[in-house]
């Protein structure tokens, strides 16, 4: 079974951590992955840096810029992941690649999926790959290499489209917590709770992870009341940018 499916079957209150590959240093990938797995992260999203990250706020823009300056590329990332004889490969922690479509297209979609599979990746999030294009052009390739494609929903997504996305999802649904780019630190307020509740009442077949704007223990535990878990990105990146140890951050959350 795909490790993503296993995880959602076996666990609640799932903590997923996002970090940008190649940040703060070109070769940070292995040590960050090891430390995340070692300290109890349930799922990990590895960000592929892009020059023009449209859906990201300042923190991830910055980490992407630094990573690119450091020389990170998709090729190199796969190379790093291939060489990992680390806990994360042996553990069941699902690894997900998150990035923008253009670098992936230049690498070649099938090439990308094949290498991802080889590197132990379970799923992919490409926010600017529209659902209809995925379905008509890329779904067979994803399935061939046993990769789950993760779709997003937002507070503005219509009920009809959410139903469609639910139908087409087989990993989990990435529920963007507010109408914003990544890194908005505004916690979980009443308005968000209303939206979370609305989605919960829809009784979707897919597991749901809440992301964007979740930054601390309070936000994480609140999100877990409404969904299968939550994703933390910008707050984690700010933490490691200060040179703080990875496990200290995880301990603050769970």
């Amino acid at each position, binding site marked *: 079974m795909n490790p993503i499916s296993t995880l959602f079957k076996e666990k609640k209150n799932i903590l997923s951590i996002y970090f940008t590959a190649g940040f703060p240093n070109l070769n940070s990938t292995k040590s960050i992955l090891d430390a995340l797995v070692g300290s109890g992260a349930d799922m990990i999203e590895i960000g592929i840096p892009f020059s023009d990250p449209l*859906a990201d*706020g*300042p923190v991830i823009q910055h980490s992407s810029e630094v990573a690119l300056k450091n020389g990170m590329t998709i090729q190199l990332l796969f190379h790093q992941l291939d060489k990992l004889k680390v806990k994360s490969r042996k553990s069941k922690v699902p690894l997900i690649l998150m990035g923008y479509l253009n670098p992936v297209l*230049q690498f070649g979609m099938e090439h990308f999926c094949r290498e991802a599979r080889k590197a132990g990746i379970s799923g992919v999030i490409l926010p600017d790959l*529209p659902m209809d*294009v995925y379905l008509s052009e890329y779904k067979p390739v994803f399935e061939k290499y046993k990769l789950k494609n993760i779709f997003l929903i937002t507070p*503005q997504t219509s009920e009809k489209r959410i139903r469609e996305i639910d139908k087409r999802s087989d990993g989990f649904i990435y529920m963007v917590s507010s109408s914003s*780019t990544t890194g908005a630190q505004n916690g979980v307020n009443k308005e968000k709770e209303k939206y979370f509740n609305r989605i919960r009442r829809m009784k979707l077949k897919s597991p749901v992870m809440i992301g964007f704007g979740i930054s601390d223990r309070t936000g994480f535990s609140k999100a877990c009341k409404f969904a299968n878990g939550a994703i933390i990105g910008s707050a984690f990146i700010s933490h490691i940018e200060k040179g703080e140890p990875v496990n200290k951050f995880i301990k603050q959350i769970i």
Partner: protein
Amino acid sequence: MRYQVNKKGYYGNFGGAFIPEMLVPNVEELRNHYLKIISSKGFQKELGSLLRNYAGRPTPLYFAKRLSERYKAKIFLKREDLLHTGAHKINNTLGQILVAKKLGKTRIIAETGAGQHGVATATVCALMGLECIVYMGEVDIERQAPNVARMKMLGAKVIPAKSGSRTLKDATNEAIRDWINNPVDTHYIIGSVVGPHPYPDMVARFQSVISKEIKKELKSKFKKENPDYVIACVGGGSNAAGAFYHFLDNKKVKLIAVEAAGKGIHSGHSAATMVLGKPGIIHGSKTLLMQTDDGQITEPYSISAGLDYPGVGPVHAHLFKTGRAKFVSATDEEALKAAYLLAKLEGIIPALESAHALAYLEKLKAKKNEIVVVNLSGRGDKDMATYINKME
């Protein structure tokens, strides 16, 4: 061959809407309504009246006698430079602000490079009493100070884009991020035939008034509504899209698009997307764009801020691939020379962008009786600092 957008938002292999889910509701709202809104009688009447009484349309199709003598052809200039705010950009912003109002939007955002589109947006927002926020690269804010001042005087808030290379591409990123963060009350007025469908088509429709008037004027004066050549510069491609629009299906009209070669196509300082670009995704559209082998978008260069965009509208990628339009380029030097020449021969100081189109006259080799229309997309006031600086 079909040159207009198809139902799915594509021009051949190019176009589409490659946007994150956060933008889907906004873009769909626009896609579902734009055709109905702009084809309604009331809208057409209101826009027509504004174009005539406020912006100054129709613009003259001026027979440039001395230029014609020099190049031995019948050269006409489509005088978009005479429009209010000094460039064709106002055709689009007037159209879009009316669409925004029909959609009930109260807050307008825009990106700008040289500041021409920013000024045209600030202008229509003042006219309609709507809040206006313009994103502009920090680098461009410094080199285009007069346009920044104009926008401020018109009541717009100019926000510096401090990410990436801090120029037009990054200003566009910031505007898109703003839209993600303000999905309900905000309309994004894109300044060219770029971005996700339906923007390229909508902007082309608003600019198509240029070729409509060219046709009408040629018919009434010469009983021949089709010129032999239409020449326009291409940044994102909106003035060219408008000047080509009504001639696309008539193969006898030769369409020539002039890109900025900067310091030379292969100098490493160029914006000639058709030669240097590869297919990819930029700002929600599949098109040709300048990028590294790893798919990172690179920074173009041109002396004219309005042409240094690393992508190009999907319609032009299609016109290029199908061969319907010929894509050529002019260097900084060639454009400057053409600008000085037009000033001396015709008493018209063109925008640096438009000067790229004029520069191609040197290479055109038209026959003596052939009609050549050059789209003079804007006036040169904003470029005086550069012109003075480069004057021998």
